[in-house]
C-alpha cells in the first residue's frame, strides 16, 4: 500500500511535469541526486547530498511520532507544526537567557525546555478535547497560527530580536549547541569536501531514541494499551477501566513533547537561532504524511521520514539542475496523501474483473480507520457513565 501510494504520486507528478512542458526524467533524476546522491549530472558530491537528506529527516522522525501516537488514540494532531515552533522558541529563549551556562547543564535544559513548551502547546488541545469536547483538529490549527504569530512577534521587534530589521533572534549560547558527528573543521577533508559542510548532528541519535521510545510506549506499557484501547473504542476502553479523558490529555502532552523536541533539536543542532525561515516551515505538516505513509509504526515512520527528507533535499537540486520548481515536491506530497487517504489503488484494483469484488461495505482504510473511531467524532461522555 505505502509503496503503491508513492508510485501513484510519482506517476501523476510526471504527468504534471510533462503537461507543463518539463521533462519528468530530468526532474526525477534531480530529485534522486539531491535526495540520495545517485545519478548526479552536475558533479554534486553524493556524500553531501546524503548528509543533507539526513539533516532534513531528523525533525521529520520526531514530529512523525508526534502525529502517529495520537492517531493510535483516535486523535488527529495537526498541530505538530505549532508544537515544533513552541519547542524552537523555548529552546532559543533559554539558550539566549542562559547563554553562559556550561554545556552539561545548558544543553539538557534547552532540549527539555523545548519538550515542555511543545507539551503545553499540545496539552491545551488535549485538555479542551477531554473536558469540553472541542475538536482537536480545529484547536491545533488555531494553536499553529498562534505559535506562528508569536514567533514573528519574538524576532521582529520582540524580546529575542537580534537587531532591528534582521528578522532573526540572537544566537543561543555555545553550550546549547548539539555536536555534529564530524569536527567543524575547514581543513579536514572528507569525501573531497571540508568536514564542516556535513551538518549531520547528534539529533539523529535523539530522534532514533525517540522513535524507539514511541514503539516501547505503545506496545510494552499499560499507557500504550490505554492509548490503543481509547483509539479502538472509547466505550470499550471505559469498560476496561481506562480513563479516556486522562488518556487523551496524556497522549497529547507526550505528542507535543516529541514535536517540541524536534523544534529544539533544529535550533540546537542546525540553526542556533530563530530566523524568518521558520515562518514558512512545514515540518509539522510533512509529519502528517510521514505518520500516514509509515502506517504509524516505528520502522515505517523512519522510512517515510527518509523519503520526505530526500524529497526536500532533492527539490533544491531538481530546481537547480533541471529547472523544475522545487514546489513539485509539495505536489507529490499532496498526491501521496490523497492516495493513502482514498485508498485509490485498492479501489481501482477491485474494479478490474478477476482481481476481486467491489466492496459492499466501505473498505477500511489502513490508517485512516483509526480516525473513524468514536474518539475522532464524539466528545468523551465519561462523566455520564462513570458516576
Amino acid at each position, binding site marked *: 500500500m505505502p509503496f503503491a501510494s508513492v508510485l501513484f504520486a510519482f506517476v501523476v507528478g510526471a504527468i504534471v511535469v510533462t503537461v507543463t512542458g518539463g521533462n519528468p526524467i530530468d526532474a526525477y533524476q534531480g530529485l534522486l541526486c539531491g535526495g540520495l546522491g545517485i545519478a548526479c549530472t552536475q558533479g554534486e558530491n553524493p556524500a553531501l547530498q546524503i548528509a543533507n537528506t539526513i539533516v532534513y529527516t531528523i525533525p521529520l522522525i520526531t514530529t512523525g511520532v508526534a502525529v502517529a501516537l495520537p492517531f493510535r488514540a483516535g486523535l488527529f494532531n495537526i498541530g505538530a507544526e505549532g508544537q515544533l515552533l513552541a519547542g524552537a522558541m523555548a529552546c532559543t529563549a533559554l539558550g539566549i537567557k542562559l547563554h553562559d551556562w556550561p554545556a552539561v547543564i545548558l544543553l539538557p535544559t534547552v532540549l527539555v525546555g523545548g519538550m515542555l513548551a511543545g507539551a503545553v502547546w499540545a496539552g491545551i488541545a488535549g485538555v479542551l478535547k477531554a473536558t469540553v469536547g472541542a475538536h482537536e483538529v*480545529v484547536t491545533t490549527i488555531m494553536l499553529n497560527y498562534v505559535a506562528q504569530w508569536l514567533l514573528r512577534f519574538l524576532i521582529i521587534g520582540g524580546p529575542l530580536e537580534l537587531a532591528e530589521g534582521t528578522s532573526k533572534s540572537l544566537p543561543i549560547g555555545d553550550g546549547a549547541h548539539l555536536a555534529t558527528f564530524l569536527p567543524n573543521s575547514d581543513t579536514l577533508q572528507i569525501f573531497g569536501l571540508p568536514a564542516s559542510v556535513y551538518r549531520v548532528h547528534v539529533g539523529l541519535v535523539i530522534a532514533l531514541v525517540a522513535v524507539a521510545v514511541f514503539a516501547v510506549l505503545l506496545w510494552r506499557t499499560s499507557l500504550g494499551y490505554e492509548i490503543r484501547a481509547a483509539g479502538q473504542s472509547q466505550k470499550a476502553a471505559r469498560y476496561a477501566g481506562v480513563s479516556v479523558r486522562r488518556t487523551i490529555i496524556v497522549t497529547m502532552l507526550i505528542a507535543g513533547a516529541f514535536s517540541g523536541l524536534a523544534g529544539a533539536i533544529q535550533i540546537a543542532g542546525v540553526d542556533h537561532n530563530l530566523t524568518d525561515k521558520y515562518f514558512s516551515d512545514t515540518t509539522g505538516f510533512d509529519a502528517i504524511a510521514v505518520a500516514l505513509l509509515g502506517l504509524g509504526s516505528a520502522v515505517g515512520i523512519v522510512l517515510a521520514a527518509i523519503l520526505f527528507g530526500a524529497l526536500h533535499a532533492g527539490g533544491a537540486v531538481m530546481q537547480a539542475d533541471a529547472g523544475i520548481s522545487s514546489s513539485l515536491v509539495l505536489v507529490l506530497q499532496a498526491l501521496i496523501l490523497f492516495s493513502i487517504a*482514498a*485508498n485509490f489503488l485498492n479501489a481501482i484494483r477491485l474494479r478490474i474483473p478477476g482481481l476481486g469484488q467491489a466492496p459492499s461495505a466501505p*473498505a477500511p482504510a489502513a490508517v485512516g480507520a483509526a480516525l473513524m473511531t468514536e474518539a475522532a467524532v464524539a466528545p468523551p461522555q465519561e462523566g455520564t457513565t462513570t458516576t
Partner: protein
Amino acid sequence: MSAITDILQLLVTANLWQVAMVSAVLLLLPALGGVISERSGVVNIAMEGMMLTGAFFAVWADLNWHSPWIAVLVAMIAGGLMALIHAVVSIRFRADQIVSGIAINIFAAGLTVYLVRTIYGLQDVGHVVPAEALPTWDVPLLSAIPFIGKVVFQQNVVVYIALIVLVLVEIVLFRTRLGLRIRAVGEHPQAADTAGLNVYVIRYGAVITSGLLSGLAGAFLAIGVSNTFVPNMTDGRGYIALAAMIFGKWTPRGAFVACIIFGLGEAIYANNSTIHVSQYLLSMLPYLITLVVLAGLVGRSTPPAADGIPYAAGSE
C-alpha cells in the same frame, strides 16, 4: 489608557469600517462555503487551498484575457475543481476528510508556486501583476447616506456579491426545501437516504459550492485587493474563515458576525501607528478568540451530527 481611547476614536470613523468590510468579505465567502459544506456533513478545512488556487488563476486569467469578470469566473472554476477533488476523495472514496483537506491545502500551495515559476519563470517570491482589477462601484443614492453609505455602499462589487450570497445562503439553508435536505444529510444521512434523498449528490453540490465561493474570495484578494499574486498570499485566511464558521456556530449570520469582528481587528491593526502593541500579537486574536469560543466560555458550538463521517449507502 490612550491606546483604548485611540481605538475608540478609530471605531467611529467610516474609513476604518470600510476597510474592515473588505477584510470581512475575504473571510465571509470561504466561511459561507464552509458552512454549506459542513452542514451537508463534509468537513472542509481546505478553504485556504481553494482560495489560494482561485487567487492564482484569477491573475492568470486576467493577464490572458484582460477581463476581471473572466478572471472571476476562471477563479471560481479553479476553486470548484479543487473542491471537486476533495469531494471525490472524501465522498466517493470515503477518505478521511481532514487528510483530504490537508492534502488540498498542500497541493494548492505547491501547484500555485510551481505554476508561477513554470509559466512566468519567476523566483519563489515573484509577483505577477494582473492587468485589470475588479472595480469599485458606488450604489446610487444609498452611497450618499452618512457613514453607512461609505461603509456598505461605496465598495468593490465583490462586497455586494458577498452580501447577496450571505442573504441567499441564510434563506436557502433555513427557509427552503433544499436547505432542509442539506441539513438532513448532514445530521442523519441514513434517515435522509431512507426518505429518498440522494446523499451523494447533495454532498457533492455542497462541497463544490464551497469551492466556488472560496475561489471567488481568492479572486477578490488577488485582483480586487492586492492586485498581485504572491505565493501563499491567502496567509491563513481560509483557516480564519474556518474559525469564523465555528464561532458562528455553523450559521451564515453567525459566521458573518465573526467575520466582521475579525475584519475589524485586521483594520484596527492596519492602523497600528496609534496602538503601541505589536501587530503580530494582535494577529493572534482571531485564533485565540476561537479557542476561547471552543473552550465553551462563550456558549457551546456544536457541529452537525454527521459532520466528517463518510456515508456509505446501506451501512449502519
